[in-house]
């Protein structure tokens, strides 16, 4: 495809006159992630999950379904509203537009039993470590149907950030560190 362009227009060394067109490279502009949703995958999106221990985190979460919000609780407040908390594994996921989100997958209870929906979600998440998948709730079977992209799609472009940084962004305004937190006081009927 290449050709000595200097044969064009005698008297001019066009190669030496050509200016670079690598716009933006020197400016070092990068996409800053300012929001990391914590949610289940949408039934309309294909997603992947980051494999590896360092990209998941077992913790206690508090889900306010009416508000559609998920809170992360620090260990000192785990005993304050134990009936509303649930142990969950937070997984790092990404959609096809490279938007990162965290999927909370509830863990088995103290008796070792697990809700079949949660079990099904865990299986979807495990599969998404290697394939682009989409999950759709199927009430008839009490779990998620898993749709796997048949085509060899390109790997996701994970952001240049650590899991800790992503978690900090995700729970920046939803971290409960003490029993005085307004959400806790409301749940306890103290405010």
């Amino acid at each position: 495809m290449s050709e000595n362009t200097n044969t064009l227009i005698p008297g001019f060394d066009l190669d030496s006159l050509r200016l670079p067109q690598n716009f933006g490279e020197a400016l070092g502009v990068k996409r800053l992630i300012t929001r990391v949703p914590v949610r289940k995958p949408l039934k309309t999106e294909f997603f992947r999950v980051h494999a590896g221990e360092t990209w998941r985190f077992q913790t206690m979460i508090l889900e306010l379904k009416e508000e559609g919000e998920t809170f992360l609780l620090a260990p000192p407040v785990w005993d304050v509203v134990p009936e509303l908390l649930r142990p969950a594994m937070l997984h790092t996921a990404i959609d096809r537009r490279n938007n990162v989100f965290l999927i909370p997958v509830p863990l088995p209870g103290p008796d070792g039993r697990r809700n079949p929906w949660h079990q099904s979600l865990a299986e979807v998440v495990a599969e998404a470590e290697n394939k682009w998948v989409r999950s759709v709730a199927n009430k008839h079977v009490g779990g998620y149907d898993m749709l796997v992209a048949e085509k060899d799609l390109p790997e996701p472009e994970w952001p240049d950030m650590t899991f800790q940084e992503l978690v900090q962004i995700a729970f920046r305004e939803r971290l409960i560190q003490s029993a005085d937190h307004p959400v806790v006081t409301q749940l306890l009927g103290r405010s």
Partner: protein
Amino acid sequence: MTMPHYPGGVWLVDFEFHPAHGREGNPPVPVCLVAREVASGRTLRLWQYELAQLTAAPFPTDETALFVAYYAPAEMSCFIALGWPVPANVLDLFIAFRRHTNGKRTPAGNGLLGALAYYGLDALAADEKDEMRNLVLRGGPWDAVEQRAILDYCESDVLALAKLLPAMQGDIDWPRASLQGRYAVAVAQIEANGVPIDTDTLAALKTGWQGIQHKLIAAVDADYGVYDGITFKLERFERYLAANRIAWPRTPTGRLDTEDNTFKDMARIHPQLSPLRELRGALSQMRLSALAVGDDGRNRCMLSMYRSKTGRNQPSNTKFIFGPSVWLRGLIQPQPGYGLAYVDWSQQEFGIAAALSGDTAMMTAYASGDPYLAFAKQAGAVPHDATKHSHKAARDQFKACVLAVQYGMGAESLAYRINQPVARARELLDLHRRTYRRFWQWSDGVLHQALLGGRLWTTYGWQLFTDDTPNGRSLCNFPMQANGAEMLRLACIQLIGDGVRICAPVHDAVLIEAPLTELDAVVAHTQSVMRKASAAVLDGFMLESDAKVVRAPERYMDERGERMWNMVMDQLGLTTRKVGDG
């Protein structure tokens, strides 16, 4: 960088001239010349009879000297008219000024007076300048007092150059200025060549136009039913669109958008609308009398190089045969024994975007010869053995998507184009982003450069400053448009140097002319030069071209204007001049 040293001198030059026989479209008749050497102040003042006796300029024009002018094609056209060899080194301060201020405000315009005002330099009053210009354009004979006045006026422009050059020195892109000057020389030659016009048909059109308008409206409107007499009725057009299931853009108030640019875009998507658009244009804007055709039947007008922000030429829409009324291009007809070829780069914008961004998938798609189908294959929407015949509908959608990206369209506009739900359009645009990730990264970089760095530039030095109200879509498209213009300029310089007769540059194409016996070889040479020009701009990546050849006595026609042309010829009773299947 400072000005290089020229041992043969730096010559500031201006001509006064008028078109032969006072007719626009004719070559120039030089009236006088004033030239001044910068270092010595030596000044030459020559009247037209003295110029006619010379076989070359009365100052050095070889590699040792620099020729300086403001809008140099004017001076070069006088060189050509006088049969003088053109200068080796041309510095056009108009180009330098446009380059230095492109995107910035120039309160007094881009002419010589505007440049002087921009740099805070004194100038001749504009009304005084107009008066002297009119005296020149009036044509001779001029008495001795008038001759002196014209020479003094000519010298005043040279003195203006003497003030402007030192003021602009630091703003000139010296390494590339001489290359840009070469283009000014090529433009002069192209303007001198002109486009051959069928003057008999033009005369019949001028005579008969008023008389056929009603019949023409009736003939065109038979397919649409949107006119009431000579009035275009919006409600009827709305009914036509609904009956033909055509989604049409609307204004914010919900009214159908009937701007010509909208009609132009929609006619591209729905070619059956072309005659209606042509008719609307012909009735509202066309001024046949303004078309500049010389005594020899050739359309010549100022190409207005570097006038647009992208650096492209911007000739007058009414004077230039390649103006917006595409059906009028049927007037282009080679002289007996000659042929014409319209040679344009294939999918130029796509190719430029691929090469400059370094997106290998995009480059592969371009090299396939059918980037639209290749995109559909790369996106996994069609099988690898698909052809444009077996998967026409899918190819059309992916083509529309590529064009939408080039025009900076959103999902809604694309949905209009492809007559599909917005969700489908969104999906296509997503596929483009995923398939050509490298391109999109680079495109984002273009925008960041413009917004943070304050300017964009091309491979050969044209530049655009970001103004106070940046348009992201235009900025992102600048590298494709402006480097396309660079490509065309390089090709024109080389082709003119090779003796190829270019009649006109047209956006991403050249119209060339050659004797029938040489036509095929000239077309092949032109395509070879255009390939090299693309490689020069794109660091070795070559773009291919298509050639549409017309041999006398055939006439040129743009397929978008064919129906309208044939209807007009019917109405004029000139049925033998119809084109295509008629």
